[in-house]
Protein backbone atom coordinates (compact mmCIF):
# COMPACT_ATOMS: atom_id res chain seq x y z
CA UNK A 1 0.00 0.00 0.00
CA UNK A 2 2.66 2.42 1.06
CA UNK A 3 4.86 1.21 -1.77
CA UNK A 4 2.08 1.88 -4.29
CA UNK A 5 1.57 5.38 -2.94
CA UNK A 6 5.29 6.07 -3.15
CA UNK A 7 5.35 4.74 -6.70
CA UNK A 8 2.52 7.02 -7.78
CA UNK A 9 3.99 10.04 -6.02
CA UNK A 10 7.34 9.28 -7.62
CA UNK A 11 5.71 9.02 -11.03
CA UNK A 12 4.00 12.38 -10.51
CA UNK A 13 7.34 13.94 -9.54
CA UNK A 14 9.01 12.49 -12.63
CA UNK A 15 6.30 13.84 -14.94
CA UNK A 16 6.40 17.27 -13.25
CA UNK A 17 10.18 17.45 -13.55
CA UNK A 18 10.03 16.40 -17.19
CA UNK A 19 7.42 19.09 -17.94
CA UNK A 20 9.61 21.75 -16.32
CA UNK A 21 12.59 20.57 -18.37
CA UNK A 22 10.42 20.83 -21.49
CA UNK A 23 9.38 24.39 -20.58
CA UNK A 24 13.03 25.22 -20.03
CA UNK A 25 13.93 23.90 -23.46
CA UNK A 26 11.17 25.97 -25.08
CA UNK A 27 12.39 29.00 -23.14
CA UNK A 28 15.95 28.56 -24.37
CA UNK A 29 14.60 28.51 -27.92
CA UNK A 30 12.20 31.42 -27.57
CA UNK A 31 13.77 33.96 -25.25
CA UNK A 32 15.40 36.88 -27.05
CA UNK A 33 18.95 37.21 -25.68
CA UNK A 34 21.66 35.38 -23.77
CA UNK A 35 20.72 36.60 -20.31
CA UNK A 36 17.04 35.76 -20.75
CA UNK A 37 18.00 32.35 -22.04
CA UNK A 38 20.18 31.75 -19.00
CA UNK A 39 17.06 32.10 -16.85
CA UNK A 40 15.40 29.32 -18.80
CA UNK A 41 18.50 27.18 -19.07
CA UNK A 42 19.47 27.21 -15.40
CA UNK A 43 16.37 27.89 -13.35
CA UNK A 44 13.40 25.65 -14.18
CA UNK A 45 16.20 23.15 -14.28
CA UNK A 46 16.74 23.54 -10.54
CA UNK A 47 13.19 22.59 -9.59
CA UNK A 48 12.99 20.19 -12.54
CA UNK A 49 16.06 18.26 -11.46
CA UNK A 50 14.96 18.27 -7.83
CA UNK A 51 11.57 16.84 -8.84
CA UNK A 52 13.21 14.20 -11.02
CA UNK A 53 15.53 13.24 -8.16
CA UNK A 54 12.64 13.12 -5.70
CA UNK A 55 10.74 10.90 -8.11
CA UNK A 56 13.78 8.69 -8.50
CA UNK A 57 14.26 8.43 -4.74
CA UNK A 58 10.61 7.51 -4.26
CA UNK A 59 10.86 4.75 -6.86
CA UNK A 60 14.25 3.32 -5.85
CA UNK A 61 14.00 3.46 -2.04
CA UNK A 62 17.39 1.87 -1.33
CA UNK A 63 19.81 3.63 1.01
CA UNK A 64 22.68 3.27 -1.42
CA UNK A 65 20.82 5.13 -4.17
CA UNK A 66 19.35 7.68 -1.77
CA UNK A 67 22.86 8.79 -0.79
CA UNK A 68 23.80 9.26 -4.42
CA UNK A 69 20.55 11.13 -5.17
CA UNK A 70 21.20 13.45 -2.22
CA UNK A 71 24.72 14.12 -3.50
CA UNK A 72 23.45 14.93 -7.00
CA UNK A 73 20.92 17.36 -5.52
CA UNK A 74 23.54 19.08 -3.36
CA UNK A 75 26.02 19.46 -6.18
CA UNK A 76 23.32 20.62 -8.57
CA UNK A 77 22.19 23.31 -6.13
CA UNK A 78 25.74 24.37 -5.37
CA UNK A 79 27.05 24.55 -8.92
CA UNK A 80 24.11 25.77 -11.03
CA UNK A 81 24.30 29.39 -9.79
CA UNK A 82 28.06 29.49 -10.27
CA UNK A 83 27.84 28.30 -13.87
CA UNK A 84 24.97 30.69 -14.58
CA UNK A 85 26.89 33.61 -13.11
CA UNK A 86 30.04 32.86 -15.09
CA UNK A 87 28.12 32.73 -18.38
CA UNK A 88 26.05 35.80 -17.52
CA UNK A 89 29.14 37.78 -16.58
CA UNK A 90 30.95 36.76 -19.74
CA UNK A 91 27.90 37.68 -21.83
CA UNK A 92 27.55 41.04 -20.12
CA UNK A 93 31.21 41.97 -20.32
CA UNK A 94 31.51 41.02 -23.96
CA UNK A 95 28.48 43.19 -24.75
CA UNK A 96 26.13 40.42 -25.77
CA UNK A 97 23.22 42.17 -24.12
CA UNK A 98 20.25 43.48 -26.06
CA UNK A 99 19.86 46.89 -24.43
CA UNK A 100 16.54 47.56 -26.08
CA UNK A 101 15.11 44.84 -23.83
CA UNK A 102 16.47 46.33 -20.61
CA UNK A 103 14.36 48.69 -18.54
CA UNK A 104 17.26 49.69 -16.33
CA UNK A 105 20.96 48.92 -16.14
CA UNK A 106 22.52 49.87 -12.85
CA UNK A 107 25.70 47.96 -13.61
CA UNK A 108 26.48 50.30 -16.51
CA UNK A 109 26.60 53.31 -14.16
CA UNK A 110 29.23 51.75 -11.99
Amino acid sequence: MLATAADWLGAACLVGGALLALAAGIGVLRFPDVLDRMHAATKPQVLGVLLLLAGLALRLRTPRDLGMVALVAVFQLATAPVAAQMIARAAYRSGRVDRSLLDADELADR
Partner: protein
Amino acid sequence: MTAGPGEARAGRVRLGVRRWRDQAVALGWLVLIWNLLWGEFTWGNLLAGLLMGAAVLVFFPLPSVTFAGRLRPAALLVLAGRFVVELVVASAHIARIAVQPGYVPRSAVIAVPLRVPTDLNLALTAELVSLVPGTLVIEADRATGTLYLHVMDVRGPQDLVANRRRVLTVERRLVRAIGSSAELRRVYEPSADRAPGGPADPGGSTDPADPGGPAGPDPVDPTDKENRP
Protein backbone atom coordinates in the same frame (compact mmCIF):
# COMPACT_ATOMS: atom_id res chain seq x y z
CA MET B 1 47.33 49.20 19.28
CA THR B 2 46.58 48.89 22.98
CA ALA B 3 46.74 45.10 23.20
CA GLY B 4 49.84 43.74 24.94
CA PRO B 5 52.06 41.05 23.45
CA GLY B 6 50.51 38.35 25.62
CA GLU B 7 47.04 39.28 24.49
CA ALA B 8 48.17 39.27 20.86
CA ARG B 9 49.65 35.79 21.30
CA ALA B 10 46.44 34.55 22.89
CA GLY B 11 44.50 35.97 19.94
CA ARG B 12 46.79 34.21 17.52
CA VAL B 13 46.37 30.92 19.33
CA ARG B 14 42.60 31.37 19.35
CA LEU B 15 42.69 32.02 15.60
CA GLY B 16 44.83 28.94 15.07
CA VAL B 17 42.41 26.79 17.07
CA ARG B 18 39.48 28.13 15.09
CA ARG B 19 41.29 27.43 11.82
CA TRP B 20 42.04 23.84 12.88
CA ARG B 21 38.45 23.36 13.91
CA ASP B 22 37.23 24.64 10.52
CA GLN B 23 39.63 22.29 8.76
CA ALA B 24 38.39 19.34 10.82
CA VAL B 25 34.77 20.18 9.97
CA ALA B 26 35.65 20.42 6.27
CA LEU B 27 37.45 17.07 6.49
CA GLY B 28 34.37 15.50 8.06
CA TRP B 29 32.16 16.69 5.20
CA LEU B 30 34.65 15.44 2.60
CA VAL B 31 34.74 12.00 4.24
CA LEU B 32 30.93 11.91 4.24
CA ILE B 33 30.82 12.84 0.53
CA TRP B 34 33.43 10.21 -0.30
CA ASN B 35 31.40 7.52 1.44
CA LEU B 36 28.18 8.64 -0.25
CA LEU B 37 29.92 8.51 -3.62
CA TRP B 38 30.88 4.89 -2.99
CA GLY B 39 27.39 4.19 -1.76
CA GLU B 40 28.33 2.48 1.48
CA PHE B 41 30.05 3.16 4.76
CA THR B 42 33.00 0.80 5.33
CA TRP B 43 36.26 1.12 7.24
CA GLY B 44 38.12 1.11 3.93
CA ASN B 45 36.00 3.94 2.56
CA LEU B 46 36.41 5.85 5.80
CA LEU B 47 40.20 5.56 5.60
CA ALA B 48 40.35 6.40 1.89
CA GLY B 49 38.00 9.33 2.52
CA LEU B 50 40.27 10.66 5.25
CA LEU B 51 43.28 10.43 2.92
CA MET B 52 41.45 12.04 0.00
CA GLY B 53 39.99 14.76 2.20
CA ALA B 54 43.36 15.57 3.70
CA ALA B 55 44.91 15.70 0.23
CA VAL B 56 42.17 18.04 -1.01
CA LEU B 57 42.59 20.33 1.99
CA VAL B 58 46.38 20.39 1.65
CA PHE B 59 46.67 20.79 -2.11
CA PHE B 60 43.64 23.02 -2.74
CA PRO B 61 43.58 25.37 0.24
CA LEU B 62 40.79 27.93 0.27
CA PRO B 63 40.81 31.27 2.04
CA SER B 64 39.27 30.76 5.45
CA VAL B 65 35.68 31.87 5.79
CA THR B 66 34.85 33.84 8.90
CA PHE B 67 31.71 32.45 10.42
CA ALA B 68 30.83 34.67 13.35
CA GLY B 69 27.21 33.72 13.79
CA ARG B 70 25.41 30.70 15.11
CA LEU B 71 22.85 28.30 13.72
CA ARG B 72 19.21 28.84 14.61
CA PRO B 73 17.26 25.73 13.60
CA ALA B 74 13.81 27.36 13.55
CA ALA B 75 14.98 30.24 11.36
CA LEU B 76 16.82 27.75 9.15
CA LEU B 77 13.55 25.88 8.62
CA VAL B 78 11.80 29.14 7.74
CA LEU B 79 14.59 29.91 5.27
CA ALA B 80 14.31 26.50 3.63
CA GLY B 81 10.50 26.56 3.55
CA ARG B 82 10.26 30.02 2.05
CA PHE B 83 12.97 29.09 -0.43
CA VAL B 84 11.00 26.08 -1.67
CA VAL B 85 7.83 28.18 -1.99
CA GLU B 86 9.66 30.88 -3.95
CA LEU B 87 11.35 28.24 -6.09
CA VAL B 88 8.04 26.63 -7.07
CA VAL B 89 6.22 29.93 -7.70
CA ALA B 90 9.04 31.44 -9.73
CA SER B 91 9.66 28.24 -11.72
CA ALA B 92 6.00 28.15 -12.70
CA HIS B 93 6.16 31.83 -13.67
CA ILE B 94 9.22 31.43 -15.92
CA ALA B 95 7.81 28.24 -17.42
CA ARG B 96 4.58 30.08 -18.20
CA ILE B 97 6.21 33.02 -19.97
CA ALA B 98 8.39 30.53 -21.85
CA VAL B 99 5.38 28.89 -23.47
CA GLN B 100 3.13 31.97 -23.70
CA PRO B 101 2.81 32.65 -27.43
CA GLY B 102 4.04 35.99 -28.76
CA TYR B 103 5.19 37.35 -25.40
CA VAL B 104 8.58 39.08 -25.30
CA PRO B 105 9.56 39.69 -21.67
CA ARG B 106 11.42 42.85 -20.69
CA SER B 107 14.18 42.72 -18.13
CA ALA B 108 16.51 44.94 -16.12
CA VAL B 109 19.84 44.93 -14.35
CA ILE B 110 19.58 46.16 -10.77
CA ALA B 111 22.17 46.76 -8.07
CA VAL B 112 21.34 45.57 -4.56
CA PRO B 113 23.74 46.59 -1.78
CA LEU B 114 23.55 44.01 0.99
CA ARG B 115 23.43 45.15 4.58
CA VAL B 116 25.85 42.50 5.84
CA PRO B 117 28.67 42.61 3.26
CA THR B 118 30.73 39.68 4.56
CA ASP B 119 32.06 37.14 2.07
CA LEU B 120 29.92 34.34 3.49
CA ASN B 121 26.72 36.34 3.45
CA LEU B 122 27.41 37.67 -0.05
CA ALA B 123 28.08 34.18 -1.41
CA LEU B 124 25.11 32.49 0.28
CA THR B 125 22.66 35.27 -0.61
CA ALA B 126 23.89 35.18 -4.20
CA GLU B 127 23.40 31.40 -4.28
CA LEU B 128 19.89 31.51 -2.86
CA VAL B 129 18.79 34.43 -5.03
CA SER B 130 20.34 32.87 -8.08
CA LEU B 131 18.66 29.50 -7.61
CA VAL B 132 15.25 31.11 -7.79
CA PRO B 133 14.13 31.65 -11.39
CA GLY B 134 13.73 35.18 -12.64
CA THR B 135 16.86 36.57 -11.03
CA LEU B 136 20.38 35.96 -12.27
CA VAL B 137 23.52 37.22 -10.58
CA ILE B 138 25.73 38.94 -13.16
CA GLU B 139 28.32 40.48 -10.94
CA ALA B 140 29.13 40.46 -7.23
CA ASP B 141 31.17 43.33 -5.89
CA ARG B 142 33.04 41.98 -2.90
CA ALA B 143 34.43 45.33 -1.76
CA THR B 144 31.05 46.98 -1.31
CA GLY B 145 28.97 43.82 -0.83
CA THR B 146 26.77 44.62 -3.81
CA LEU B 147 24.97 42.11 -6.02
CA TYR B 148 24.18 43.04 -9.62
CA LEU B 149 21.19 41.06 -10.77
CA HIS B 150 19.48 40.49 -14.06
CA VAL B 151 15.76 40.41 -13.41
CA MET B 152 13.38 38.90 -15.89
CA ASP B 153 9.83 39.90 -16.85
CA VAL B 154 9.87 43.47 -15.59
CA ARG B 155 6.60 45.29 -16.18
CA GLY B 156 7.39 48.61 -14.55
CA PRO B 157 9.37 50.39 -11.86
CA GLN B 158 7.37 48.67 -9.13
CA ASP B 159 8.87 45.33 -10.19
CA LEU B 160 12.37 46.71 -9.71
CA VAL B 161 11.48 47.82 -6.18
CA ALA B 162 9.81 44.49 -5.47
CA ASN B 163 12.84 42.53 -6.61
CA ARG B 164 15.21 44.66 -4.56
CA ARG B 165 13.05 44.09 -1.51
CA ARG B 166 12.87 40.37 -2.24
CA VAL B 167 16.68 40.05 -2.27
CA LEU B 168 16.96 41.96 0.98
CA THR B 169 14.29 39.71 2.50
CA VAL B 170 16.29 36.65 1.49
CA GLU B 171 19.33 38.22 3.11
CA ARG B 172 17.37 38.90 6.29
CA ARG B 173 16.11 35.31 6.47
CA LEU B 174 19.63 34.06 5.91
CA VAL B 175 21.09 36.23 8.64
CA ARG B 176 18.29 35.19 10.97
CA ALA B 177 19.24 31.57 10.31
CA ILE B 178 23.03 31.75 10.58
CA GLY B 179 24.10 35.32 11.39
CA SER B 180 25.55 36.81 14.55
CA SER B 181 23.49 39.13 16.72
CA ALA B 182 25.39 42.18 15.43
CA GLU B 183 24.55 41.20 11.87
CA LEU B 184 20.94 40.69 12.91
CA ARG B 185 20.79 44.27 14.18
CA ARG B 186 22.12 45.57 10.87
CA VAL B 187 19.50 43.63 8.95
CA TYR B 188 16.66 45.04 11.02
CA GLU B 189 17.61 48.66 10.40
CA PRO B 190 15.49 50.41 7.76
CA SER B 191 16.86 49.38 4.38
CA ALA B 192 17.67 52.87 3.08
CA ASP B 193 20.33 53.51 5.70
CA ARG B 194 23.32 52.01 3.95
CA ALA B 195 24.43 54.92 1.83
CA PRO B 196 27.28 54.38 -0.65
CA GLY B 197 30.58 55.03 1.07
CA GLY B 198 29.12 54.22 4.45
CA PRO B 199 30.52 51.59 6.79
CA ALA B 200 31.02 48.69 4.45
CA ASP B 201 33.16 46.27 6.38
CA PRO B 202 31.77 44.93 9.65
CA GLY B 203 35.03 43.08 10.25
CA GLY B 204 36.71 46.45 10.61
CA SER B 205 40.04 45.06 9.43
CA THR B 206 40.59 47.71 6.77
CA ASP B 207 39.08 50.62 8.65
CA PRO B 208 41.87 52.94 9.83
CA ALA B 209 39.56 54.58 12.37
CA ASP B 210 38.95 51.30 14.18
CA PRO B 211 41.32 51.26 17.16
CA GLY B 212 40.77 47.60 17.97
CA GLY B 213 42.33 46.34 14.78
CA PRO B 214 40.89 43.19 13.30
CA ALA B 215 38.03 42.30 15.55
CA GLY B 216 34.61 40.72 15.46
CA PRO B 217 31.61 42.56 14.16
CA ASP B 218 30.60 43.82 17.58
CA PRO B 219 32.96 46.82 18.00
CA VAL B 220 31.69 48.44 14.83
CA ASP B 221 28.11 48.66 15.94
CA PRO B 222 28.32 51.72 18.21
CA THR B 223 29.88 53.78 15.43
CA ASP B 224 27.14 52.53 13.15
CA LYS B 225 24.50 53.88 15.44
CA GLU B 226 26.21 57.28 15.60
CA ASN B 227 26.15 57.48 11.83
CA ARG B 228 22.47 56.89 11.72
CA PRO B 229 19.84 59.53 12.20
